[in-house]
């Protein structure tokens, strides 16, 4: 909210999620928050570590109402409330939540507002609360992230302008987009997988692996060489299942 809206007596504060929290000075927390209308911001919560009531509210994966002051590098937290009670993420879904947060922390610069991406994040967290399969939720968010940050190709067309055909094979070139290729190309994926990806069909066993590889391939150049810790944890959680 801007200063002018506050002076006209409208509500202050913004809807947001905490992406990361770490100790700051003796009793404070340094939060990284995702706000619907202002994007990612650094926020200092003064005395939050010694304030049990506030500490209890400052949790990851919960929709919060946050009242912030200050426009500089770091805002100050004036007040926080829980918007609504969302059951806590548990087990594997919790690691998936961390994965979404790690993606945003790595890829989204501060002060870059993406309301649509915020809504996708909200939906993804809500879905993780009740999902029996987490993978489709992760794929949906990865796709939305690529689209919102302008890194997604036209899913329905190869780079030569031809519509994707279910029976043909393609590979993802991170520079040029979707290229037709031969079936034995090591990176070849079926056209059907691309069509499923385009229509958000993440549930079909036959295409799920292809879709994961395609999305991860598109994210890779932006993520840099340092591996995502949460993805390592997910692998561990998979490996033992």
């Amino acid at each position, binding site marked *: 909210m801007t200063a002018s809206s506050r002076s006209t007596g409208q509500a202050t504060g913004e809807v947001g999620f905490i992406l990361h929290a770490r100790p700051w000075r003796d009793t404070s927390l340094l939060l990284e928050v995702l706000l619907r209308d202002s994007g990612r911001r650094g926020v200092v919560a003064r005395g939050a570590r010694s304030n049990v009531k506030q500490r209890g509210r400052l949790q990851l994966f919960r929709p919060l109402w946050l009242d912030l002051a200050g426009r500089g590098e770091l805002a100050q937290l004036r007040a926080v409330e829980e918007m609504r009670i969302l059951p806590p993420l548990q087990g*594997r879904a919790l690691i998936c939540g961390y994965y979404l947060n790690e993606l945003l922390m790595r890829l989204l610069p501060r002060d870059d507002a993406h309301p649509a991406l915020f809504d996708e994040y909200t939906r993804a967290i809500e879905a993780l609360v009740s999902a029996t399969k987490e993978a489709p939720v992760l794929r949906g968010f990865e796709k939305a992230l690529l689209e919102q940050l302008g890194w997604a190709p036209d899913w329905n067309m190869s780079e030569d302008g031809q519509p994707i055909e279910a029976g043909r094979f393609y590979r993802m070139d991170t520079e040029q987009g979707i290229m037709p290729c031969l079936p034995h190309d090591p990176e070849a994926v079926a056209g059907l997988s691309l069509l499923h990806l385009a229509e958000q069909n993440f549930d079909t066993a036959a295409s799920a692996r292809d879709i994961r590889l395609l999305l991860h391939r598109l994210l890779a150049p932006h993520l840099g060489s340092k591996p995502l810790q949460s993805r390592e944890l997910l692998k561990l959680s998979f490996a033992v299942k």
Partner: protein
Amino acid sequence: MQLSPMVNELMEALRRLPGVGPKSAQRLALHLLQRDRDGARRLARALDAAAERVGHCTQCRTLTEELVCSLCRNPQRDRSQLCVVEWPQDQWSLENSGAYRGLYYLLMGRLSPLDGIGPRELGLDKLEVRLNSGEITEVILATSSTIEGETTAHVLSEMCRVRGIAATRLAQGVPMGGELEFVDGGTLARALNDRRAI
């Protein structure tokens, strides 16, 4: 006032302690030098010896100057139970409760993917070796009730599950004397989830 280099160094050193500011450092230094020289010498010797020789138990990773700590060597302890905690202070709290007779494993932290603290940093590989020994039949997950503590407990419970070892979590919920109005949503949700018949 210009302090002598030694007095100054003592005060600077005391300020390494958490919560000790310039005023407290001055007070502590004056106390040791003016009123309690014997105490000062003893503190110096204890600090020097501990800093030199205290390491981690090769079995449970707690702080000790021995290769294997006395708790791990104690034949009275139940060797089939292993309680996993984050820090030595958690182990000490549980010991003080007097309600536990098994062994411990200390992680010295908790999984925190965005801070770069993963399974390797917590020595989960060593814990796996311990679980593979076949001696342990129950693992009690006493990691904190923070999100990181929950994440850690999940990964540990999976490690137990594949080995057919029972894993239990410390019960959590509304604190003693806690009025519902002042309990946060997450704690309430968990307390509801883990409710029991009376």
